[in-house]
């Protein structure tokens, strides 16, 4: 069982590296936000500093969403999904593994790059570690929730719009607590409660997302 999942994870990572995954597109989206926001809201440093964390979170969230619809599409089209379900492995473990591979190859790199980029919008250096912590935690939830959307739209052409409509509501709690962790740093409270709630959301999606995506994909296979 472990060997099969390891093989799947290794293939996903190799595939993302070889065919470029979605990381390139997501990263350029992130960069576009950094470049365009100061032009849109003006060069007011105090204003940018207040907006920085929130905008980075928003950009991260949308960038991850951008790659969601391709998560299971190829595997469904080329028949890989058929073979993946034929083994003794629970299908939920397969969707979980694919979501984790997506996190490793797309969301996690974005979560690591985004906070330093926020410095370019005059983010307070002191809040950098908290932003990093909240983004790394939250990005796993983003990948897991994206896998639900990817699974539901796997058999649809141009499912991108549907993914956004389906998944955005689920992203709202992640966004709220991810941002509040960093903005609270500026006030008297500590960031801990928000970070803990964010962690709870991530753990919850770790349980629910594989079940939901497996159920969605089964409807395509049967």
């Amino acid at each position, binding site marked *: 069982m472990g*060997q*099969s999942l*390891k*093989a*799947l994870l*290794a*293939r996903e990572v*190799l*595939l993302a590296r*070889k*065919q470029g995954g979605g990381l390139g597109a997501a990263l350029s989206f992130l960069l576009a936000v950094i470049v365009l926001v100061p032009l849109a809201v003006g060069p007011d440093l105090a204003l940018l500093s207040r907006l920085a964390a929130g905008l980075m979170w928003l950009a991260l969230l949308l960038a991850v969403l951008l790659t969601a619809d391709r998560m299971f599409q*190829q595997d469904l*089209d*080329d*028949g*890989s999904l*058929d*073979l*993946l*379900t*034929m*083994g*003794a492995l629970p299908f939920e473990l397969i969707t979980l593994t694919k979501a984790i591979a997506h996190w490793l190859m797309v969301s996690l790199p974005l979560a690591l790059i985004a906070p330093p980029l926020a410095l370019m919008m005059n983010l307070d250096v002191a809040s950098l570690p908290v932003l990093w912590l909240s983004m790394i935690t939250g990005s796993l939830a983003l990948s897991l929730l994206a896998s639900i959307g990817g699974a539901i739209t796997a058999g649809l052409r141009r499912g991108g719009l549907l993914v956004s409509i389906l998944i955005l509501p689920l992203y709202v709690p992640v966004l709220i607590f991810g941002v509040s962790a960093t903005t609270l740093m500026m006030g008297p409270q500590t960031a801990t409660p928000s970070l803990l709630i964010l962690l709870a959301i991530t753990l919850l999606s770790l349980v629910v997302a594989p079940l939901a995506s497996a159920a969605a994909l089964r409807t395509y*296979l*049967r």
Partner: protein
Amino acid sequence: MWKDLVLEAKSLACERGGRTIFRELNFAVKSGEAVELRGPNGAGKSSLLRLIAGLNRAAEGALTLGGATHEIAELSHYIGHQEAIKPALSVRENLDFWSHFMGGNTQNALVPFKLERLADDEAALLSEGQRRRLALSRLIAVKRPIWLLDEPTVGLDVTALDDLRKVMQSHLNSGGLIIAATHATLGLAKISTLAIGTTH
């Protein structure tokens, strides 16, 4: 290698999109036997193979595998029209993945279908027939008793067809089962024909 396996179908019925494709289908396949499915397009040959592989559900009836403790799907190879090949990966990487995933061994698995020379090429460069040969190589890399082949001969040239025949024959000799949907002649020593979809 395998003995006394019996795959048995009892009054099997299949529905697709609310329409009955076939029903009251009965057959039994034993170790060392091959069955070719014959029938017009749309008769349900592919549906039957997917049903045996556990990818579709039977509307009625049951499939049993005597002589084994595992599920049928876990002991089966399914080679469908889609080849489960990733164009971005090399031939070897493609085969390695499925073999590791299914718990097999890729040593020499590229030899029977003469793919060794292409091992490091991207699968995107393969021709139709070569893709088929790569998919069929899974049969060798991972040892499983039941082979479910959907039009295995499509795109194969004369030599590859001959290779396939040899591989299938040695599988039958070691006690495996083969169920193949095909319009071509497979030319195996011991093969029976199951006609489906002729009743209506």
